[in-house]
């Protein structure tokens, strides 16, 4: 039996687990081989040293700790009132949070839908378009773009009453005419427009209206052209005669 084979069987030889013939062969080799005998003694010494390791002193508190744990677990219903999880301690919190979240989302959605940003500043093209309109339209308060009587624009007052048009005096009858008279900045009548009514008024009537003179209307003290509207009834004319 070789030294290697003997050393390979040290563990079983120590446990007396080898069959008798093999055990006798190992013993014989150990008696004849000093090197293997030395290793065998060292092998056993190491393991005896392990077996002789000092134990660990018990504190005697383990049973008490176990009973404390069991006692605490036995009182779980009472303790759970204090140490139970957050959700379990507040059972109504989650159900009440769900509708609250929906309401909050609806409010936020409405706010976002209604939230319109400030009006955008006029872009260069918008400003250019406004200037273009200014170039097309004449200035306000002129004869070609008259103003209308308002709280700030005074009504032109007639200076001298002209005589009634001869046509109306010659042909009294019924019927009315609706006229626009544009009083210029110098008080003259720059335009007379027939807007409705009897369209058969002769030109002499219009000419007679053109000859009227007014104290011009004023805007912030400055004379401006103003449009005035008049409804002339022939019955009135007839009544004046």
């Amino acid at each position, binding site marked *: 039996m070789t030294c290697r084979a003997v050393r390979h069987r040290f*563990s079983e030889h120590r*446990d007396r687990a080898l069959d008798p013939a093999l055990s006798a062969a190992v013993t014989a080799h150990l008696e004849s081989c000093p090197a293997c005998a030395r290793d065998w003694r060292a092998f056993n010494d190491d393991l005896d040293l392990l*077996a002789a390791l000092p134990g660990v002193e018990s504190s005697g*508190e*383990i*049973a008490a700790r176990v*009973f404390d744990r*069991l006692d605490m677990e036995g009182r779980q219903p009472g303790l759970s009132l204090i140490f139970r999880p957050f959700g379990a301690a507040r059972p109504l919190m989650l159900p009440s949070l769900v509708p609250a979240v929906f309401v909050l989302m609806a409010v936020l959605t409405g706010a976002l839908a209604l939230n319109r940003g400030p009006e955008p500043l006029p872009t260069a093209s918008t400003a250019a378009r406004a200037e273009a309109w200014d170039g097309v339209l004449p200035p306000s308060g002129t004869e070609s773009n008259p103003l209308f009587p308002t709280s700030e624009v005074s009504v032109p007052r007639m200076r001298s009453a002209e005589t009634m048009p001869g046509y109306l005096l010659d042909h009294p009858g019924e019927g009315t005419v609706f006229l626009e008279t544009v009083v210029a900045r110098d008080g003259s009548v720059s335009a007379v427009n027939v807007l409705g009514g009897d369209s058969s008024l002769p030109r002499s009537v219009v000419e007679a209206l053109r000859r009227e003179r007014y104290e011009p209307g004023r805007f912030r003290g400055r004379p401006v052209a103003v449009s005035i509207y008049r409804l002339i009834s022939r019955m009135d004319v007839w009544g004046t005669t």
Partner: protein
Amino acid sequence: MASGELALSSAERSPAAEPALVESCRRGDAHAFARLVALHEGMVLGLATRLLGDAEEARDLAQEVFLQVYRTLGRFEGRSSLRTWIYRIVVNQCRNRQRWWRRRRRAAERPLDEISATDEARLVAVSAAESPFDRLAREERARRVDSALRGLSFEHRAVLLLREVEGLSCEEMAATLGLPVGTVKSRLSRGREGLRRGLVSRGGERP
């Protein structure tokens, strides 16, 4: 209820008294369970300390072990001895705790040769009559053995401790660890070789 204060008679320590003790514990007898803890806590603490390499962890684990014993004693069928059944719980809990450490990348288990003065004070002297020199030499040897033991894998360490310290047979170890007897013998042989190599590499001269 401090089990350490219990003075156990030789009759209570005998294996014949074990079934009655187990039966009393199953009925919820607190004193019987305290006696059971007093009977086995030294073994549990020693084995857990050697397996984990940390006396405080072992103390904490021992509490968990006896808690599990209390809760599962009803399922103990008595086919093996109570001690063997408790060995199995200890080894399984130590293995689980080591895996827990590994998952959390615990730097390194505290080796026993770096055991603190507090832990060392708890080590029970084998002989009270030894001289200071012998005591120092013994402690030095114990440190080297512990260090070599720490160099082994958990499975080799468990087999070696169950055999050499607790004195279990290969069949009992196989039942405890849930392994075939051949596997246990193989691990035991490799564990012994590993321990020897570790002692030689750490010691210089043989102890």
